[in-house]
Each structure stands twice: as structure tokens, then as C-alpha cells.
């Protein structure tokens, strides 16, 4: 809604407030003014001039030499507009003027002829092209004949004004009109409202003799009225009206259309004027459209309708889309002399449906959709009749032809001082509360403590006690609400164990060198069913996706992490280490019958150099063991370090020889591995290692307790062994054999060398371990250790065919 400050002054006395102050008042009161548009800042030295002579420029086909009387003098001005002519009254920018585009007007010579100013178009004066009346769109503006020569043209065009652009909340449909804003302003300032003149003289002829109204769908159209106005003369509307419409963002068309638009903005009541002679009959029938019925609307578009839509008809064919837009054939035209003026109340749901299906949104449909004041329809109609009589020479026939199914329900809300103060935490007196309802012009009755307030169709948003309390708060002023802290039951507050664990995981990974990423949950079909943790029977698809790229919910975090790796790679960042904590979404085989499973997972992607200190020649590339080390560290951090096991595995998108499943207590909960080289190629990335873990399983595992164990008082004995085993024997397996055979005394087994190649038989590799033996109760003897150690060696020979390396 665009509100002209000057226009608003007609209805409420705000002469002591500037436009800025008015905007501030409204905003603080809850009607947010989003922007202020000063219409003519710095626009000066522009006057109404009279073109006395207009001759062809001798040296330029498209230019004319005009002698223009500007009130104080007659100046020669060169003009290039095609519509300039002698006898016109025009807007003249005199030397010294600066136009809104920044153009400075100076005395100049154009093709050898002097020019002392410029004759302006409306666009040059800062009016948007789409708001300029069609006749002046391609040339200069011409004032009405009664314009005073020498007068301030900016003022004549109503441009000494500021427009307030409102950002209305959906409940305040009452502010979609000048009068609505006036009531709001009056309530805020505790002032009166001056309603416009709506008194016309009715002709003796009765409208009811001329037309009839029938409403077939009263539930969609509780009230329909028609007035008949004869003998109208179509022409331009008065300049002040055109100016105000322009300020409101509406292009002036002709007096009749302008008047309906003017009343629409003034009262918030949409009106429609049909050409009675073109209407096609004398009976107006409001009904639902038939399936496949068509109408050509004012914009010359053919619309195909359904029974969900409502139309105004002449008994045969539709003449308007009810509440949305008129039809083309009954449109008011230059030769129109008789008008059928429609003023109706259409219900929001029906208009919304019609507007949405046809894709047509108009000033009219917007208001019907949000709900108009059903009790202001007649008033608006009368106001339009008054204006048509005055500015279109019309004769208003006696009476209004109408069908009225409106239900006038009386709804009373009650509250009391105590309740108001209790909810707000304030201390307002009953008198103050009652005076606020009076300022809002709501019928209020006080009975002891009780305050009863009658609901009004002017403010349909006020229905319950809390609505009233809000009115009290906003008019009294939110600034007066004190700041207190809750005084109820004390609650400890805090994070759940899982939330704490997630923070622990984040902190660990951050300090381990990984950056946290947050990527989109919506993805493309070719990115689901990749890098899966477990079987996904179905995906969760969006019904009306905005694009293929965001059409389904992710089933793995890895594809978007790889996208991120690639994004950074394209920006010359080749060393990337990322993790993400988020949900994946698992649907059902057929369409969703219940909410999908949302599995919380932790994933990562690491590529490029890991450990680097260049001038010292250190350059460690990320490999499987870098990422595995991070996971091992993480498992220790969350207390399951000794329980998580890695075992070789195969995944479609991973390198078959460099991937492992991670399990705990026999339950697989994640994987780690190098991205398959073909998949790396697909993503346009280099060697990249990824992991993904089911967070719920990870965090629900029994944690190793933190408790104190006595520090060893006796020395340990360390023995190193180098073993030769078959190259496909897993180191983990060998280590397990050692640990089992070593028994109680063996405290620690560390692999410190892996060797394959020279000096070894083909198909063999050497593994070297360091074993630490310790008895916490006493000093171990060499013999004891040797005995255990030999048992270890025997077991190794037996179970993994290990041979001591010579």
C-alpha cells in the first residue's frame, strides 16, 4: 500500500507532523512503513508555461522552436517532443532547474537556435513510465486548460508530497485504504477522522426499472449492489485526482475508471464500472463459472474457467471475473454514456481461488482476498456516485439494486484491568484502557472490573481478549513495558547427552584440522543412492521441486562434500579437509505413508596435502591412514576407542582395495575409504578420502568409563620382533594373535615397521612389532618374559604362519 502524505491530510489532522514523523508514528504503532518516497526532492524552477508559438526548427526535422510564456517572461525553448503544439499549457524547466535524473537545465543553443529551458514530460519529472497516462507516454505532458500560467508545475502535479510505502502484516487489511490509515493515525494521535463527501442528488428515474440483480451463490457473494449512472461524459479526471492516483501507483485512464480506482484506494472497497449499453442485457446474474467457460478480460487475454471460479454475467455470458478483473466487451470506452456501478462483497476464499488459478492479481483481488469491510460497501458506492455526478457529468438513478445476504453478528469481547496488566506485566489503569478502546472507535461498556468491547467489521482482526490486550499495549506503547525476568519455577536448562557429544565431536574434528561444512539437504536424483551407509528403500522427493538440482532429500552427506571439494579445487584450493554433521532422509519403497527416517550422520572428505612444512621438505599427502587416524582419535574421544573395529569392505563408490567398514560390537556403523578413481573423475577431483558414520550408533555405544588405575611401580620389559608373513596376511590379524597369546603380562603391542621387497621372498612381507610386558604387582624376571614371548612366537607360527625374520 502506497500512502500519499498530502492525501492522508484530507481525513486526519496531521499538519503538525512531517511525512517522516507520520511514518515513524505508524511504524511504532505496528503499521510498518518500509520506505519513504519523497516525490520531488530538490525539484524547483519548473513552472506552468503557455506555448504561444510553435515552429519548425530550420536545421532539424524533429525539433520545434517554441515561444513559451512562463508567467514572468516569454522564453524561446527548443522542443523535440512530437506532441508539442501552440496553445498548450506545459511544464517548463527553467535554467537552474535540476531534474530527478540529474540533468541540469541551462541556456543552450540547439542546432544554432537559442533554447532557454526545457518542456518536460512526466517521466522527466520523475514519474514512472507505467503511471503516465497513455496519451502523454511518448511526449510532453499537457496541463488542463484551466492551469494557471506561471504557477509551480511541481505543485500543480501534486509532486510536493511524500509517499509512504507500507509493509502490512496480513491481519491489518483495514489499512489497505486511505480511510483505514486515517482511523489508525487518529487512534495513535487521539484525533478525529474527517470522512469524505458522499452526498449526491438522485434523479427521479429508478435504477430498479433499468436493471435487476440476482446472486446465485450468496455464500460466495453475500452482498451485491448496482447503481445506474446515465449521461456521463468520458474524459480525463480532474488533475488532483490523477495526481493522487499516480501517488498511489495507479495510472490515470479516464474519469469513470479513475473514480472507481480513487474510491478503491480511499475506502478499500473495489468497484467496477460496466458500460451499461455494452453489458448485453439488463439483468446481472452472479454465479459460478461453468467448466471450460471462457472470458476475455480487460487485458485482452482469454481465460478458461472452472466451477471453482465466480463470474458476473449478463444472464448469458460472463462480463467480469468477480472481484478480480472486468471483461473486455463491457469495458467503459470513450463513447460510453451509461454506467452500471458494481459495489459488492465477495468472500476471500473464492476470490483467492479465482485470482490464483488465472494468475491475475489486481488492486481489487488483493483487497477481497484479505477481506474488506462488508459494512462500508454502500458508503463507497455513494462516494463514487458523488464523484461521477461531479466529475463525469453523470445522473445517478434513484436507488440501489441489490441482493443482501450479509449476516450482522454481534460479537463482544471482554477483558479486565487485572488480566491486561497480568499478561503485559504492566500497571495500566482502567481509565487508560477504556480510553484506548474509545480512540479506536470501538463500542465499549464498563461494568465494574469488566470491560466489554464490541467487535467491528472495520477491524476484523480483533476477535479475542488477547487481541484487545495487544491494542492496549501498542497504543499505550511497548516502550512502557518494563523488563523483568521470569519469576516462575526455576529450570536448570542445558544440553542433552547427545547434544554434548555432538559438540565434543565438532571440537575434536576442528582441532584435528577439519573444517566444518554445512551443505544443502535438497539434492538431485543423481546424487542420491550414492555413498550409502545402509540400504535406502526409497527417497523423499519434493512434490513441486523448484529445480531438478533440489528435488529430493539427500541420503548421504558425501556427494555434497565432494561438490564442496570440487568447488574449492576450482578456486585453486587443493588441500581440503571437511566434515559435516547432519541428517540423511530415508523413504519407503512406495510413496511415503509416515514421516521418513532421519538418520543423523557424520561424514568427512579429505584431499590434497595433509602435513606440510615446505622449507623443511615435509610434504605428507592425505592417505587412508591419515583419515583412519582421525577416526581412531575420535573414537577415543567419545570413549569407544577400544571397541571400534575396521575391516576391509567393498562399496560401489569407493576404491575396492582401500575401503573399510567400521563396526562396534559386531554392528557396522560406518565406512571409510578412498573415493573410487572413476567417481573422482566424475566429480572432477583428485585422490580424496571419505568417511561416513551413523551417529546414533556411535553415540549409543557403551563408553569406556573414566576411572583411576594405580600407576605401575615395577619396570616393564620390552621385546621387539620382526616377522615374515604372507603379503595378504592383515597386520590387524597378526596383532590380534600377539595380543591373545601375550595374555595378562603383555601390556602394549606397537607395529613399528612394514617392509616388502628386496631381501624378502616374493609374496612375503615383514612386520615388526614392539611388545611391552609388565606385571603391576612385581618385577618381571627375564625367564618369565621369555616364556610368554616364546608362546607368542609359537602362536604366530601356528596361526599366521609367521617366521622370525633373520
Amino acid at each position, binding site marked *: 500500500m502506497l500512502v500519499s502524505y498530502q492525501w492522508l491530510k484530507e481525513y486526519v489532522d496531521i499538519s503538525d507532523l512531517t511525512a517522516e514523523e507520520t511514518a515513524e508514528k505508524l511504524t511504532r504503532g505496528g503499521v510498518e512503513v518500509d520506505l519513504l518516497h519523497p516525490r520531488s526532492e530538490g525539484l524547483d524552477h519548473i513552472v506552468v508555461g503557455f506555448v504561444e508559438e510553435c515552429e519548425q526548427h530550420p536545421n532539424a526535422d524533429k525539433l520545434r522552436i517554441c515561444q513559451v510564456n512562463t508567467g514572468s517572461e516569454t522564453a524561446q525553448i527548443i522542443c523535440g517532443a512530437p506532441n508539442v503544439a501552440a496553445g498548450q499549457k506545459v511544464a517548463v524547466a527553467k535554467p537552474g532547474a535540476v531534474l530527478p535524473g540529474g540533468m541540469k537545465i541551462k541556456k543552450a543553443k540547439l542546432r544554432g537556435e537559442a533554447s532557454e529551458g526545457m518542456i518536460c514530460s512526466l517521466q522527466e519529472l520523475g514519474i514512472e513510465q507505467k503511471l503516465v497516462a497513455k496519451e502523454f507516454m511518448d511526449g510532453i505532458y499537457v496541463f488542463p486548460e484551466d492551469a494557471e500560467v506561471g504557477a509551480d508545475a511541481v505543485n500543480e502535479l501534486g509532486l510536493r508530497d511524500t509517499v509512504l510505502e507500507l509493509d502490512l502484516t496480513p491481519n491489518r487489511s483495514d489499512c489497505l485504504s486511505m480511510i483505514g490509515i486515517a482511523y489508525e493515525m487518529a487512534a495513535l494521535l487521539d484525533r478525529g477522522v474527517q470522512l469524505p463527501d458522499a452526498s449526491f442528488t438522485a434523479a427521479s428515474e429508478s435504477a430498479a426499472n433499468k436493471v435487476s440483480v440476482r446472486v446465485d451463490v450468496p455464500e460466495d457473494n453475500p452482498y451485491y449492489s448496482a447503481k445506474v449512472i446515465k449521461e456521463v461524459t468520458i474524459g480525463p479526471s480532474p488533475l488532483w485526482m490523477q495526481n493522487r492516483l499516480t501517488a498511489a501507483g495507479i495510472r490515470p485512464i479516464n474519469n469513470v475508471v479513475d473514480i472507481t480506482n480513487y474510491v478503491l484506494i480511499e475506502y478499500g472497497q473495489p468497484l467496477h464500472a460496466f458500460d451499461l449499453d455494452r453489458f448485453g442485457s439488463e439483468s446481472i446474474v452472479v454465479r459460478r463459472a461453468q467448466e471450460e467457460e471462457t472470458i476475455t478480460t480487460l487485458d485482452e487475454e482469454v481465460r478458461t474457467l472452472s466451477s471453482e471460479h465466480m463470474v458476473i454475467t449478463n444472464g448469458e455470458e460472463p462480463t467480469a471475473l468477480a472481484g478480480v478483473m472486468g471483461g473486455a466487451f463491457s469495458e467503459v470506452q470513450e463513447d460510453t454514456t451509461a454506467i452500471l456501478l458494481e459495489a459488492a462483497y465477495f468472500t476471500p476464499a473464492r476470490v483467492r481461488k479465482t485470482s490464483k488459478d488465472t494468475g491475475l492479481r489486481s488492486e481489487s483481488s488483493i483487497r477481497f482476498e484479505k477481506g474488506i469491510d462488508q459494512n462500508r460497501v454502500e458508503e463507497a458506492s455513494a462516494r463514487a456516485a458523488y464523484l461521477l455526478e461531479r466529475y463525469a457529468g453523470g445522473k445517478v438513478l434513484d436507488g440501489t439494486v441489490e441482493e443482501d445476504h450479509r449476516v450482522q453478528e454481534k460479537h463482544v469481547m471482554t477483558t479486565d484491568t487485572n488480566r491486561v496488566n497480568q499478561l503485559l506485566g504492566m500497571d495500566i489503569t482502567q481509565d487508560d484502557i477504556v480510553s484506548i478502546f474509545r480512540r479506536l472507535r470501538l463500542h465499549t461498556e464498563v461494568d465494574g472490573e469488566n470491560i466489554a468491547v464490541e467487535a467491528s467489521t472495520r477491524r476484523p482482526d480483533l476477535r479475542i481478549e488477547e487481541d484487545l490486550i*495487544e491494542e492496549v499495549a501498542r497504543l499505550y506503547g*511497548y516502550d512502557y513495558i518494563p523488563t523483568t525476568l521470569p519469576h*516462575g519455577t526455576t529450570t536448570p536448562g542445558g*544440553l542433552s547427552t547427545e547434544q554434548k557429544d555432538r559438540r565434543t565431536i565438532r571440537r575434536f574434528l576442528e582441532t584435528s584440522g577439519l573444517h566444518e561444512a554445512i551443505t544443502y539437504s535438497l539434492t538431485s536424483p543423481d546424487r542420491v543412492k550414492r555413498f550409502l551407509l545402509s540400504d535406502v528403500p526409497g527417497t523423499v522427493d519434493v512434490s513441486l521441486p523448484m529445480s531438478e538440482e533440489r528435488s529430493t532429500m539427500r541420503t548421504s552427506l558425501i556427494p555434497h562434500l565432494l561438490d564442496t571439494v570440487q*568447488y574449492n579445487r576450482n578456486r585453486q*584450493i587443493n588441500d581440503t579437509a571437511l566434515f559435516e554433521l547432519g541428517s540423511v532422509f530415508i523413504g519407503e519403497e512406495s510413496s511415503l505413508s509416515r514421516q521418513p527416517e532421519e538418520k543423523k550422520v557424520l561424514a568427512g572428505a579429505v584431499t590434497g596435502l595433509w602435513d606440510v612444512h615446505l622449507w623443511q621438505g615435509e610434504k605428507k599427502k592425505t592417505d587412508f591412514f591419515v583419515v583412519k587416524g582421525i577416526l581412531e582419535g575420535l573414537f577415543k574421544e567419545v570413549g569407544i576407542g577400544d571397541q571400534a573395529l575396521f575391516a576391509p569392505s567393498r562399496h560401489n563408490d569407493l576404491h575396492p582395495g582401500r575401503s573399510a567398514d567400521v563396526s562396534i560390537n559386531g554392528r557396522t556403523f560406518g565406512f571409510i575409504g578412498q573415493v573410487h578413481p572413476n567417481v573422482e573423475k566424475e566429480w572432477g577431483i583428485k585422490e580424496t578420502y571419505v568417511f561416513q558414520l551413523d551417529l546414533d550408533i556411535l553415540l549409543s555405544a557403551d563408553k569406556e568409563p573414566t576411572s583411576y588405575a594405580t600407576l605401575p611401580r615395577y619396570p616393564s620389559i620390552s621385546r621387539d620382533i620382526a616377522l615374515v608373513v604372507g603379503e595378504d596376511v592383515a597386520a590387524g590379524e597378526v596383532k590380534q594373535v600377539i595380543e591373545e597369546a601375550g595374555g595378562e603380562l603383555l601390556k602394549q603391542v606397537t607395529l613399528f615397521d612394514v617392509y616388502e621387497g628386496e631381501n624378502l621372498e616374493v609374496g612375503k612381507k615383514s612386520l615388526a612389532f614392539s611388545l611391552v610386558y609388565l606385571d603391576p604387582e612385581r618385577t618381571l624376571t627375564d625367564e618369565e618374559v621369555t616364556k610368554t614371548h616364546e608362546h607368542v612366537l609359537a602362536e604366530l607360527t601356528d596361526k599366521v604362519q609367521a617366521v622370525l625374520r633373520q
Partner: protein
Amino acid sequence: MIDRLQELGKEALEEIKQADTVKALDAVRVKYLGKKGPITEVLRGMGKLSAEERPKVGQKANEVREEIQQQLEQKTEELEKIALEEKLQEESIDVTLPGKEVKRGARHPLTAVVEEMEDIFIGLGFSVTEGPEVETDYYNFEALNLPPDHPARDMQDSFYVTPDMLLRTQTSPVQARTMEKFKGKGPVKIVCPGKVYRRDDDDATHSHQFMQMEGLYVDENVRMSDLKGTLEAFVKEYFGPDRTIRLRPSFFPFTEPSVEVDVSCGICGGDGCRICKHSGWIEVLGAGMVHPNVLTYNGFDPEKYSGFAFGMGVERFAMLKYGIDDIRHFYTNDIRFLEQFKRV
């Protein structure tokens, strides 16, 4: 003989003085104190002396020897010190060369903001509660007083996955679920962080996915002044103690009264600048007193209970705090962007 010893002593000390390496010094030691050295020789000839003279010469010889010994030690120490200094000098490094960097990642700025907000509200007695991202129509809208024909429920504004399930458009459904769980008995005091989705085209200020942090407090006698006090405490903690808030009337279906909350501009201190559009205030969140319908739908008696609720856009808070100018940065995860939040 004593003279001879004296002379030897003098000679030796002179040579010690002259010696400039440990090696030269060793040679002096061998020369004078060695088994074949002159002092030993003198001592060897002591047999020829009288019993009277013998102890005197012996004493003198010991004196001279000790003197030489002491001087040798002192000189050795000196020379060793010099040698060590030279060695250390040779070992010196260029301390301006770069050190080996400790590899460190960074927290995502949205996580940083969420955690900071959580911690502030935990301090005020709130618990952190979460819920599903694919929600039922009921919890996302109906339980929050948005009836089926409400314009905000338009298919065009939300990502529906079935006719009655959608990607949640707000984290408020978590509030509805939590209230339901409390079965009409307060206090409920929670904040709900999480991802939400709306059908917006992504640009500098819009994102089809973003994060919210909503809060709810339901108990007996909760007042609007408590809402104001709680939010003011939060704002001062998050933005700084010199910041203030103001409430402006607004509208949300789930609260009545509803307010927009502005925080005083941190750039100009309230005088008006480009950042606050010359108003001195920046709109940061929406809030209000829980609508009686919402209490009723979720099992609380509005005659007995009242409550407040608020909702904040995490991205907006992050953008305001760190001066980030494009919401898309949060989701493209450019390492150069993420790197900037190492210290948060």
C-alpha cells in the same frame, strides 16, 4: 733446585697463557706435568738432597705443580667455553623462518552462532530441543494456529513431499511437539535450533534452506515484560552490553500480542547510518505471547497458563555479527570463508 722449580713454574704459566687451543694446552700439560716432564725430573733428583732440604723442595715442587694444574684447569675451562660458544654460534638458526603450522580446522559460523545462542539461553534456564526436518502439516501449521486455508500454507511457499508432509518451514513444530509431551503441565522452557526450508530462489539475502533458533516459555503467569527482559538479556550478551532493544507491534498467527524486536544499531550507536537504513534500529527477531489457541491445541489451559515465544534467523545474526554480505556463503563452504571463523 728451588730456583729451578720456580723458573719451571714461571715458564709453564707463560706457556699456558700463550696456549690458545685445548690441544696446545694439553701439550703444555704433558710437557710440564707428564711423567717425563721437568718437574718429575726434579723430584726424581731429590734423593740427592739432604733430609733438611728434601721437604722444602718437595713442598715447592707440589706448590708449583698445583699452581700449573690450577692454571691449566682454569685455562681449559676458558678455552672450552670459547669453543662451545663458537660451536653454538655455528648452530644458530634463522628464527624468522616460518614455524611448522599446527593443522587446525574451523567451526562453521552458523554452528558458532547456534552454540553461542544455546549457551546464553541455557544460562537463562532453557533446554535445547530438536525435532524432525520433514514434518507433518499438523505440527508445522495446524498446531500453531494456521488453519488449512491460511495463505502461509500455500504450496508455492513450502516444499511438500506428500499432501500432508513437508520440509518444515520453521522450527516451531518442535515447540508444539514439546508442549504435547508435557501434557498440559508447565514449565516448558526450551530453545529449538535447526534447519528450515522455504521455496525461495537463492540470492544474496534469500536461501531455500536456512537455520532458525526459536524459543518457548510456558508457565503460570508468564508476562510480556518477561519476554522483553529475556530478550534484552540475550541481546546484551550476544551483541554487547551497550545494545538495547525495542518492541514494535507485529503479527504472527501463533502469538498475540506479537512484536518485532529491533536492536539498537551497533555501527552508529543509534544515530542512524546506512546499515540501519538511518533508523538507528535493526530488526532482528519476531516474538510474542503464545496465542491461546496454540496453548489449547497443545494441551495447555490458557486460563491457567501463559507463555512467550520468539524466533530468530541464525544467518541474520551471523551476518550482523560478522558483517557477512551474502547468505549463500554459508552453504558454498569456500575454505577461504570458513577459515575466517577459526577464532569463534
